[in-house]
């Protein structure tokens, strides 16, 4: 990054990094410092305390522990596509169809192969086929309907 701050200790005229690191420094790093650190004194302008609390929590979500927020029952960001990649992919209208489908069919193909192999293995060791309750012969066809599987 920039040596500007260290620079001032020696050369007095470090070429203006003002506006330089400014753009390169990570926003999360900056927010972490300007919001949470620094000298905290009450100015004349007070934001409603309750609101500050909410605000701080929201901002923390952007830079800090999501788990902690979830513990507190706060999860609105998961539904806000501008904040959450999960919300983006969950929302049908925001869904990048082509990519997801490609990934999905790959997973399905792998599932199919896995099911076939499991059936084979079960057959080999004499276990009943998958699909628990109803029996089909140890073998392949019965496995094809086990479609409930969510592939994480």
């Amino acid at each position, binding site marked *: *990054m920039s*040596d*500007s*701050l*260290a*620079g*001032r*200790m*020696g050369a007095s005229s*470090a070429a*203006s*990094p*003002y506006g330089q*690191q*400014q*753009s390169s*420094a*990570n*926003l*999360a*790093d*900056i*927010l*972490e*410092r*300007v*919001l*949470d*650190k*620094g*000298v*905290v*004194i009450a*100015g*004349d*302008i*007070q*934001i*409603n305390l309750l*609101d500050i609390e909410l*605000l701080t929590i*929201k901002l*923390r*979500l*952007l*830079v*800090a*522990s*999501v788990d902690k927020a979830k513990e507190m029952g706060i999860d609105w*960001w998961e539904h806000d596509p*501008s*904040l*959450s*990649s999960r919300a983006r992919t969950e929302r049908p209208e925001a869904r990048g169809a082509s990519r997801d489908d490609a990934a999905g069919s790959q997973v399905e193909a*792998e599932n199919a*192969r*896995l099911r076939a*192999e*499991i059936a084979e*293995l079960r057959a080999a060791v004499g276990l009943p086929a998958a699909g628990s309750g109803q029996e089909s012969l140890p073998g392949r066809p019965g496995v094809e309907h086990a479609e409930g599987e969510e592939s994480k």
Partner: protein
Amino acid sequence: MTAEMDPATDGAMSYVYAVGRAGTPVETALAGRQGLEGTPLRTVRAGDLVALVSSVPSASYGAEGVQAQMEDLGRLEVLARTHHAVVEAAYEHATVLPMRLATVYLGDGRVREMLGEREPEFSALLARLEGHVELGVKVYADPREAVAVSSREAEADTTDRPGRAYLQRRRAQQQNHRATYRAAGAVAAGVSDRVAGIAEAHVTHRPQQGELTEAAGENIVNDAYLVHGTRAGAFRAALAGLGDDVPGVRVEITGPWAPYSFATPPEAGGGEPR
């Protein structure tokens, strides 16, 4: 919006970026520079202290205005980056205490009163931080990266046994996951040893998560160290190469920063504000 703002206007309030000592370059160095809303920076002096301020319109910096700005990530970013840029520019010339974002007073008179009231506290902090900078150290664990390295060859000859291959892959992933986090922990533990003779204080920040975190992998350690400005190079050198030989583990050093993380009074507990 309002590049027209006249500092003398009734509607203007005083936004405080930082506090420094009178008689240091902070009083003159930023003359001609602009702060928020494009208004010029100036200093307000009381006793031995000066505050670096600029006038801001009360419409956007009153209670509702500030809140609205903070609720909007785009505006918040402008606010935060501008605030930070002013602090940083000042810190290039003199040791200053960075104020928290959106510390706003009704006018310069109120800023003077505040400086008067806080004089002992601010003077002590300024003395402690004189000549020091803050360096951030973040350690990331990225098991996927480690897996990508290790499992490439394994995949080729198992395509006819996808089940076994899958299980092997899962096991390898889990082992990798654990190993990566363990390795990252070990790397993180090495940081404080390496900088022991260089850093003078240390605070732990919450690991960063969320959309604003641009880096790959999970941030497991997010610390800040207080280092004398002349030793910032030595600090970086001491950590050079740390983690480079550990797949899936990355060490990132940020700064030097104005010592934001050390400008809070000790009672605040350093890492975890309530």
